[in-house]
């Protein structure tokens, strides 16, 4: 606590200090895509892992050259978690860089209090490409327009991608599984066949990392907003669950069966599984099916799978039908516009603002998009009858060690928040990923809207989530592992409500209603 108090005092002392950033050398604007005039110099705060990523990209020096920019990339914490945990204190310190990545709520709340610049007029005067994108995307416009009518930040458009269920095709073959499962029942049968074919005590057919609750779409148990605008469950863009949906109880019962019959990895359920242990299990045949990020199948194929076992083969299966036999909707990883990757300009860097927004305008321009999504013509892509085609391959470029300059175009990673080109993104993948990605996402992906909370809503919500989530998590483990009988399910729902579950859903509803 003393450390916390010291941090606050130091932060207060910092604020009373002189305003250094306004005294830094000013940069006059260079035209969009222009290479003449004074150099555009500014600093940019983002997580360290994206800095490492950006520095290796071969198109990045080209981007700097084309915009005549000199950008100081400031490490705000290695990964996303570290970055966001320390972001608040960085925002309040006197040495906040000229631009930064923040959450949308931070952009609005602190923007309206004068910490970030209002970009509305700047865009109007200096950024025709950003303006064009805003006008063409009403959802984007609604999202970035604050309650006072100003624009304080520019979010990243995220490609439409979902997790995919994938399996060891060679294991399926050996277990005599001729066709892929299409329903939960068939999937359960497949797990049983696999367990029978591979009876080792440490083989669990279904394994994974992080959250183990999967197939909510097939049980119709996702968190979602229905057609009448009602929020179901603690809203997590469809990636969570609706605790009170009848299907969710069935899902928990199903998991209990999987656990009892040793068809699912217990370490995954208990929460002790790490990314490394999961990878090891999938690579060494201690697991056969996972439901994870869509590039993971090719990761396993390229990171030791066939090297350890020449028969090693990973394939992707279809999403399992819902209880009515319909094709389910699998929630996309992120809303179309990410509310946690928002580009803002420090109000103390007003003198550089015009130049910075012109740089960002280049990022939004066709020329900028081509550079960031395809690279340089003749080097990384060619034009074939008006269609762009990559000359470089992800298989060769994507797996080079850190620090090696590469052509890479993974738009899901953060560089400068920009519009996404999903076609280019899917095209850039390796052959295995390309073989299913576009088809799977077209068939199943559902992009859920992002909710925008007020400061008070956010504060209350995060406090309640801190109470409720551990209670829900620990009880779900108890139900699944049989330590709590499912007959106590209704009592559990009441306990969750007493801890604040319904209140969180109410806050989500209020946030949705306020921005309808």
């Amino acid at each position, binding site marked *: *606590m*003393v*450390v*916390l*108090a*010291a*941090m*606050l*005092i130091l*932060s*207060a002392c910092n*604020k009373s200090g002189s305003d250094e950033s306004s005294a830094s050398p000013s940069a006059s604007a260079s035209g969009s895509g222009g290479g003449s005039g004074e150099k555009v110099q500014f600093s940019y705060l983002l997580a360290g892992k994206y800095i490492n990523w950006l520095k290796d990209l071969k198109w990045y020096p080209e981007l700097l050259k084309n915009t005549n920019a000199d950008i100081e990339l400031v490490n705000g914490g290695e990964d996303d978690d570290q970055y*966001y*945990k320390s*972001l*608040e*204190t960085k*925002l*309040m310190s006197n040495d906040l860089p000229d631009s930064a990545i*923040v*959450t949308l*709520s*931070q952009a609005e*709340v*602190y923007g309206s*209090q004068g*910490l970030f610049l209002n970009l509305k007029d700047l865009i109007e005067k200096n950024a025709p490409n950003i303006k064009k994108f805003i006008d063409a995307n009403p959802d984007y416009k609604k999202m970035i327009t604050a309650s006072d009518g100003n624009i304080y930040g520019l979010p990243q458009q995220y490609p439409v991608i979902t997790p995919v269920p994938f399996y060891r095709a060679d294991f399926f073959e050996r277990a005599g599984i001729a066709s892929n499962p299409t329903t939960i029942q068939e999937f359960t049968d497949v797990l049983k066949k696999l367990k029978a074919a591979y009876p080792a005590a*440490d083989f669990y057919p279904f394994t994974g990392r992080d959250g183990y609750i999967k197939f909510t779409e097939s049980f119709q148990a996702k968190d979602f907003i229905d057609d009448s605008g009602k929020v179901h469950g603690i809203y997590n863009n469809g990636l969570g669950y609706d605790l009170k949906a009848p299907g969710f109880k069935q899902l928990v019962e199903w998991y209990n069966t999987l656990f009892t019959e040793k068809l699912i990895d*217990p*370490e995954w*359920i*208990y*929460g*002790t599984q790490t990314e490394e242990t999961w990878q090891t299990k999938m690579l060494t045949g*201690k697991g056969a099916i996972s439901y994870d990020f869509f590039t993971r199948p090719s990761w396993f194929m390229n990171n030791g799978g066939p090297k350890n076992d020449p028969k090693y083969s990973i394939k992707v299966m279809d999403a399992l039908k819902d209880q009515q036999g319909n094709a389910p909707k699998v929630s996309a990883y992120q809303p179309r516009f990410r509310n*946690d990757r928002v580009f803002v300009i420090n109000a103390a860097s007003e003198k550089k603002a015009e130049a910075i927004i012109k740089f960002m305008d280049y990022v939004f321009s066709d020329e900028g998009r081509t550079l960031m999504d395809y690279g340089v013509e003749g080097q990384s892509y060619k034009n074939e009858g008006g269609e762009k085609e990559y000359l470089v391959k992800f298989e060769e470029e994507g797996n080079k060690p850190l620090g090696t300059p590469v052509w890479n175009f993974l738009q899901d990673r953060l560089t400068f928040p920009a519009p996404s080109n999903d076609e280019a993104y899917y095209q850039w993948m390796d052959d295995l990923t390309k073989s299913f990605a576009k088809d799977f996402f077209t068939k199943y992906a559902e992009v859920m809207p992002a909710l925008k909370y007020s*400061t008070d809503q*956010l*504060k209350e919500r*995060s*406090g309640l989530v*801190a*109470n409720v989530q*551990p*209670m829900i*998590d*620990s009880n*779900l*483990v*108890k139900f699944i*592992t049989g330590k709590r009988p499912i007959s106590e399910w209704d009592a559990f729902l009441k306990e969750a409500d*007493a*801890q604040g579950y319904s209140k969180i859903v109410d806050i989500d509803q209020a946030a949705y209603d306020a921005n309808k």
Partner: protein
Amino acid sequence: MQTALRSETAGGRGRRLWNGMWRSRLLYLILIPGLVHMLVFKLLPLFGLVIAFQDYSLIKGIGASKWVGFANFEKFLSDPYFWKLLKNTALLAFFNLLFVFPIPILFALMVNEVRIKSVQRFVQTVTFFPYFISSAVAVSILYTFLSPQSGLVNMALQSMGGEPVFFMSEPGWFRPLYVALNVWQLFGYSSIIYLAAMTNIDPHLYEAADMDGASRFRKMFHITLPSILNTIVIMFILAIGQIMTVDLDKILLMYNPSLYDTADVIQSYVYRQAFATRGFPNYSYGAAVGLMQSIVAFILVLSANKASKKFSDSQIF
């Protein structure tokens, strides 16, 4: 007249104090860095605790944030989760005190009995090592040993025909493992204080006991232990002050959803409230909970000190 006398006396005392300080000026000079450190890093930050009574906003600062009185304290005390957190914290701290405190004393008593000095030094050095291992590494070692599929302990259990035990995900195992890890890391280090106290025991006492035919155990319990009793009492009072303090690093590294029932303590809750959120962390609430915890610890130290004053001669203040 009386006033004049009093001021003269006060003046004389002041002069004497100044003269005394001037004579020992070099010693006072050495004291300055320590005092400055204490002032800057220990005392001044305490003023930051006023945020516990505010709806603190980083952008507004302490001066302009809204005052909310005891609202943050009331919120915590009326929280349905409060009693569970308190129970988990108190139990974890109690078990920690119960084992982590006496084991170094017993260990020091045993090491003190080793007559071959080189063996004594070797044992001390080896047991001292774990203190330098970070919590992250210590917990990783624990994970590796107790892994249900590849851990040494479970392999041994399975070779004897048993079923693997998910030690790191059984709520019932959390407290024993946490305490055992603390004992392993701290007993060698903590025993040094007692060993140092033992070196000050007058050897004549042991010689006299030898002449009376006292056995080793009698000497241990009738000479060594009473001679270091004052040190034990002082260390105990200090340990009481830490009773509400659990090792958050270790808990965060060890806990997972299946352990929340026993592993979620006040500190991990404060951490979730104040630091783990994306945007607008609730520093005031975190500070209020922390302050309450400190007050409880302070009262415990005062009580332990008073009890110690009553039952023995030792006290801290």
